[in-house]
């Protein structure tokens, strides 16, 4: 550092840097308009909640579901709202992030839950944050034999007024019939959408989700399916399929690719309902049951009476379903 350098640094320190007229006001506007403006809790309430939680990772408290979140839920569930169940569970707090599971819907293969989260200690949550959660069966094995269920977790709404985030957790994979004991692992949250979770996670919430009724069929059918547009598909060996009011799941041999198969469900009144391919997965294990390959299709609108289903068309391959719950030999639909 020369004397000249020292003199320049003195000048740099002493001088004011001119900025454009109105710079400070516009900067203030930018700062006040930053996303994720959570309303701070009253100090007394904050201290009470923090004290109640002590230093433990998870402590049960009670928190009402935000009315705004109820409105968001109604919007996201749409026509499927009647098939959801409210989860009136305790609230969990970790690193000052309060989490509550508020709503769920599941059949034997697909499960979706919504949770609301709020920052008790600051403004760390906002609509562009990253969130990491996973939903799976209780006792889900880990290690090499871990079932390869798929899923996603994302913040779908953020209420600026209350600072409450609505997070959707979606899971796909085989689940047991009857009441399902599930576990929701809260991995945590990140300031970046795709960032590693850095706060508010690392614990598991036990969940009891009542599974929707469904009809299951064993088929063991080799489909040399021709899609509706005439495209020849690879052979598919389907072992079983299952229909619920919200979707259709199929399982089969490893290597089968259902993803391009269009699904149509035929009802006894003559109407035909289509389903949209949602996801597929390979080599999933549940209670020792092996689903080597499977796929799931969502119904755009709920199928209110699954007993009214008289057949399903996979591509152009029609499989009739009889009143006694058995399936007949499939055949290629002409035309």
């Amino acid at each position, binding site marked *: 550092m020369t004397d000249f350098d020292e003199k320049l640094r003195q*000048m*740099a320190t002493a001088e004011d*840097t001119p900025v454009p007229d109105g710079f400070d006001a516009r900067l203030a506007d930018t700062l006040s308009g930053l996303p994720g403006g959570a309303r701070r809790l009253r100090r007394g309430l904050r201290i009470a909640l923090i004290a109640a939680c002590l230093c433990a990772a998870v402590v049960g408290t009670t928190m009402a579901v935000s009315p705004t979140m109820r409105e968001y839920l109604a919007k996201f569930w749409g026509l499927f709202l009647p098939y959801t169940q409210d989860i009136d569970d305790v609230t969990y707090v970790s690193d000052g992030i309060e989490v509550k599971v508020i709503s769920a819907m599941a059949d034997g293969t697909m499960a979706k839950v919504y949770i609301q989260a709020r920052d008790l200690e600051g*403004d760390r949550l906002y609509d562009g944050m990253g969130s990491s959660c996973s939903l799976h069966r209780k006792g889900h094995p880990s290690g090499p034999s871990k079932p390869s269920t798929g899923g996603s977790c994302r913040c779908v709404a953020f209420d600026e007024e209350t600072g409450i985030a609505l997070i959707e957790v979606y899971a796909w994979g085989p689940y047991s019939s009857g009441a399902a004991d599930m576990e929701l692992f809260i991995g945590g949250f990140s300031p970046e959408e795709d960032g590693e979770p*850095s706060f508010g996670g690392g614990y598991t919430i036990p969940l009891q989700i009542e599974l929707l009724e469904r009809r299951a069929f064993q088929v063991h059918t080799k489909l040399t399916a021709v899609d509706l547009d005439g495209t020849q598909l690879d052979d598919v060996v389907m072992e079983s399929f299952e229909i619920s009011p919200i979707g259709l799941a199929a399982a089969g041999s490893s290597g089968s690719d259902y993803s391009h198969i269009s699904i149509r469900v035929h009802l006894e009144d003559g109407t035909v309902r289509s389903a949209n391919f949602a996801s597929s997965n390979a080599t999933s294990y549940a209670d020792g049951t092996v689903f080597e390959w499977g796929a799931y299709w969502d119904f755009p609108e709920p199928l209110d009476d699954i007993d009214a289903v008289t057949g399903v068309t996979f591509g152009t391959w029609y499989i009739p379903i009889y009143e006694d719950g058995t399936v007949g030999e499939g055949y290629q639909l002409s035309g």
Partner: protein
Amino acid sequence: MTLTREQFTQAVTQHSRAMFRAARAVLDSDMDAEDAVSEAVLSAWQHRGKLRDAGAVRPWLVKIAVNCARRLRQKNGRMLYFDDLEQLSGGTRDRQYHELWEAVLSLPPESRTVVVLFYYEDLTVEQIAQTLKIPQGTVKSRLSRAREKLRTMLCEEVERA
């Protein structure tokens, strides 16, 4: 640690001049520099969880401002403003400056940036090289050339100091 909204607002307000200066060193107009600062504020807010040391908030904000300004410069390409015409015509070549900032603005953008980071932000050559992702030797040569120009332009002021 993650800055709260209040802490973040306070930090940006406190260091807004440094952010503007850093952006203006990269860009050729006050207007673009202000745009870069706005982008930098949003970016810093979204990534505030990455700030590990609250004491390092100023260099962190300045670095983000530099990065946003460089992206804006790349996006806009080299734009010519009326303010540049005097420099290009040689009108400032032998001019004496009384303010350091005024003299810095007459330097080429590459020199302006290293000068601002070195003299205004007290960053080391190594830190500047990391921030601008250029070799330390390049920082030193740019700094050396800028120093000589500033010595000429600020001759009277430095003598007085």
